[in-house]
């Protein structure tokens, strides 16, 4: 008897084994497990697990500082939600809603990054931090020792914070470096108002809620960005008159729409003032005094307005004289009235001339003061007693090619600054632009040679001073809600390391501790003032500061996301106001703009068949770093125009031989940019608009070189002129399929 293994017996064995295993759970178990396995593939994302908690903070992504409820799963900051009833704004825009993603933006740098912009390979590389800091320190020391401290500068894209003070103190200790700010449209508007008053350090505080009539120059008021959404007239809000070239949503919802030509803001405002003064609609003694108040060069507002009769302005603006006269009468009859400038902030600031003309309407309508809708509050610099030296200056005041080291604060990923203008300030090939930024992109990272990685929004405590043109003085902290990235440093720590490397002794209260001390000091200043209220986002309650006996109580509340605010308290007397500016030069500026901003630019040598308007997008500024999920708006749904979609009316586009979606080349006197045509019939003929904002074709791509494109501000000549929102442009079909 042998157990002979034949083929047949093997088959029988195998068949038996198959039958046997079918009689066992094996196949069903494996099927079940395999089915579950397909749900657990490693590339299927796993959400964090853990207990849910909430922290309150302030959004840091634009100057408004909306309240934010951060949702945490365990220690992970997963999402941000609005805080109902928050005094800054009880809402969040898509940028703020996606704030939790900003820490993981693909362009975030994970170490000190450097690149050779002119070399063959301009890609970012992670380099040795100590060596880089050492090199920068030696440069600082060299500038100091040869008495050229003014070849060091810091660009602070959001002045008025605790970090701003640290930057100024750093520069002062370096022997007097330059402290530079780059105002956005709102800050520029506020600065223009301050230029009409002889009192220093004040800020306008317009409050549409107190007005019966609001005349608004182009800002998307009903679209509600920046906390300025106003209640419709039908629901008890003010009568809204919108001056807007485009049939925008705000224009469509306004009670009156004045479709003025692009760039005619100053002539329109001055024509309205003309009617108010010469028809004696502004009959108050105070207003007549303002209109006749002589200035250094002897001219008065009445004389300056004489040229701007509605009949003359009608040609420039495309509005009828009757429209202008009726609007002036409506404003005069509907007091308290308020006139707002700014326009579309995405296109950079309006000129000081336009803003002065617009603010003058408020002066004439008696809007300034406690009875009107335009309050006045102390500027934050005055509130917190910021050091006056070094004085804040604008980028255009600095000579080109004069800087060895230019530090740019990038804690605000989208800020209005021209990359080309920043680069021009550097001394030839030797100057270094150093970004203190979490990203190798955005306002600071795009033009930089070196990025010193700082904390991303949500990882550190930054303070949020009152936004320009807010109705109330305010102050809040953007508190830390997320675990800081291990590869990043506090910007104040980078400053301290630079200072030490430059051979100076860092003060004991330096670095992060110095920043914390300044934050605490500010809480102490507010507590000592004893005025204003504190809103607690956790319970929605408001407490008077007067009831807080201890500065630590206020600091503790701010650390929990509370918001301090105080009503506008300053009053201005007639003698404090200078309708033609403190230097009286406004009359001459206005004359130069009598033909409108486009014509003024036209005479500067540009020619083109189209008027290109910058702006009209969601992102606050050009080249902003936006969270990856915003791709839903910019690319997947096309809801928001990206910075490569040229909005243009169908008639105008077809006249250029361009269909919807056609690739085209946009040429201005300052540069060229590839765009795609997007029909937008809300625009008047021969006007095109290019939005500030991310470029959807390379969103979140850190490898894209910044040199292969001209960004919107530079395309519009922001490096050469302070007002760049309008430019003449030509549009051709792009035949070839590549760059």
């Amino acid at each position, binding site marked *: *008897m042998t*157990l*002979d293994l*034949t*083929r*047949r*017996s*093997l088959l*029988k*064995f*195998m*068949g*038996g*084994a*198959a*039958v*046997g*295993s*079918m*009689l*066992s*759970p*094996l196949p069903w*178990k*494996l099927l*079940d*497990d*395999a089915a*579950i*396995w397909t*749900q*657990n593939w490693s590339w299927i994302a*796993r*959400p964090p697990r853990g*207990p*849910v908690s909430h922290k309150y903070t302030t959004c840091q992504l634009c100057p408004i500082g909306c309240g934010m409820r951060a949702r945490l799963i365990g220690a992970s900051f997963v999402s941000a939600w609005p805080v109902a009833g928050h005094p800054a704004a009880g809402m969040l825009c898509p940028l703020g809603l996606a704030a939790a993603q900003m820490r993981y933006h693909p362009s975030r740098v994970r170490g000190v990054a450097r690149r050779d912009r002119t070399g063959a390979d301009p890609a970012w590389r992670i380099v040795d931090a100590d060596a880089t800091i050492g090199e920068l320190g030696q440069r600082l020391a060299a500038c100091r020792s040869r008495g050229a401290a003014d070849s060091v500068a810091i660009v602070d894209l959001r002045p008025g914070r605790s970090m701003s003070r640290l930057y100024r103190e750093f520069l002062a200790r370096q022997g007097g470096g330059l402290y530079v700010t780059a105002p956005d449209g709102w800050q520029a508007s506020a600065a223009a108002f301050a230029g009409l008053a002889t009192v220093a350090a004040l800020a306008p505080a317009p409050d549409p809620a107190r007005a019966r009539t609001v005349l608004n120059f182009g800002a998307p008021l009903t679209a509600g960005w920046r906390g300025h959404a106003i209640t419709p007239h039908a629901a008890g809000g003010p009568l809204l008159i919108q001056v807007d070239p485009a049939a925008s949503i705000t224009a469509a919802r306004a009670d009156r729409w004045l479709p003025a030509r692009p760039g005619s803001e100053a002539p329109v405002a001055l024509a309205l003032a003309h009617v108010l003064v010469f028809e004696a609609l502004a009959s108050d003694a105070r207003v007549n005094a303002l209109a006749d108040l002589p200035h250094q060069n002897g001219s008065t507002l009445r004389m300056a307005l004489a040229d701007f009769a509605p009949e003359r302005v009608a040609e420039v603006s495309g509005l009828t004289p009757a429209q202008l006269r009726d609007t002036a009468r409506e404003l005069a009859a509907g007091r308290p009235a308020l006139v707002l400038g700014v326009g579309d902030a995405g296109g950079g600031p309006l000129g000081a001339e336009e803003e002065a003309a617009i603010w003058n309407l408020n002066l004439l309508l008696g809007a300034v003061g406690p009875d009107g809708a335009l309050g006045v509050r102390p500027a934050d610099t005055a509130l917190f007693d910021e050091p006056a030296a070094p004085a804040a200056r604008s980028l255009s005041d600095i000579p080109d090619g004069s800087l060895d080291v230019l530090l740019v604060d990038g804690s605000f990923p989208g800020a209005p600054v021209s990359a080309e203008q920043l680069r021009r300030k550097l001394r030839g090939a030797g100057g270094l632009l150093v970004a203190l930024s979490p990203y190798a992109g955005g306002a600071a990272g795009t033009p930089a040679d070196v990025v010193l990685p700082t904390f991303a929004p949500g990882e550190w405590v930054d303070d949020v001073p009152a936004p320009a043109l807010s109705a109330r003085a305010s102050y809040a902290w953007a508190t830390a809600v997320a675990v800081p990235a291990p590869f990043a440093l506090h910007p104040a720590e980078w400053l301290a390391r630079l200072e030490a490397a430059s051979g100076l002794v860092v003060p004991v209260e330096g670095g992060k501790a110095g920043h914390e001390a300044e934050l605490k000091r500010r809480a102490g200043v507010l507590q000592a003032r004893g005025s204003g209220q504190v809103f607690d986002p956790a319970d929605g309650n408001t407490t008077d500061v007067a009831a807080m006996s201890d500065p630590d109580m206020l600091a503790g509340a701010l650390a929990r996301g509370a918001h301090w605010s105080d009503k506008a308290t300053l009053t201005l007397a007639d003698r404090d106001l200078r309708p033609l500016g403190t230097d009286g030069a406004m009359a001459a500026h206005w004359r130069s703009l009598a033909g409108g901003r486009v014509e003024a630019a036209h005479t500067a040598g540009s020619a083109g068949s189209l008027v290109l308007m910058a702006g009209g997008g969601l992102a606050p500024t050009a080249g902003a770093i936006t969270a990856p999920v915003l791709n839903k708006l910019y690319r997947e749904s096309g809801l928001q125009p990206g910075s490569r979609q040229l909005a243009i009316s169908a008639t105008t586009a077809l006249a250029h031989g361009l269909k919807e979606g056609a690739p085209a080349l946009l040429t201005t006197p300052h540069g060229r940019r590839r765009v795609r045509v997007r029909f937008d019939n809300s625009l008047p003929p021969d006007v095109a608009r290019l939005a500030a904002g991310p470029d959807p074709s390379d969103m979140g791509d850190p490898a894209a070189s910044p040199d292969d494109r001209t960004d919107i501000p530079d395309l519009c000549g922001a490096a050469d002129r302070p007002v760049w929102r309008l430019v003449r442009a030509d549009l051709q079909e792009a035949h070839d399929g590549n760059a």
Partner: protein
Amino acid sequence: MNDNDRDPKPRIEIIPTTNPEQERSARRNTVWGRVWLALGISAGLFIGWVALPFFLYERQEQPLAFNHSVHTKDAGMACADCHGFKADGSFAGIPPTSSCVDCHSEAQGTSKAERRLVDEFVTPGVEIPWLVYARQPDNVYFSHAPHVRRAGIECRRCHGDQGLATATPVYQVNRISTYSRNIWGPRISGGGPNPWDSMKMSDCTDCHRERGVRDHCLMCHK
């Protein structure tokens, strides 16, 4: 067809069936064939019932030897003292290290495990990386509140006598599905003698059916 096919020199002539040698051989082949078949079946059964669980599950030790019994019997604590609800209605599940601190900021006894708890987790404030027997896939939604608070179901109904155990059971992870064996049950055929032995979807739906709870996909899936 029979085994003669395998003969190296096949003969064409018909072999008389009465050949006793041939008959014996055929009978032997049939017997051995059956034996092989039986062996195969037993091997299949063995693989399916015995070897599969052995190879399918990887045995893992918990990071810390935890004794439920000391806490519930000796210290007289209830389940909810550590595994409680939070204000938002969610169930805390495995308690965080911070909840151990009240009693174990310093070692109370002499056990090695407690020493480790204090030195490695409580003092540095590190969470204990427990292996969770009842962990469900991400697409499963389960809330303790309706079961415990509203329906009054005891912890034991689903978690068994965990609370009385003196040692943590060995955690057996399924190498394919990556979930604990406690979901499928100790029997390789699924489940076990007790109702708490498995936590499959069928266990949920069976109990819902018994209690007359209307089911809908989104009720338990997210």
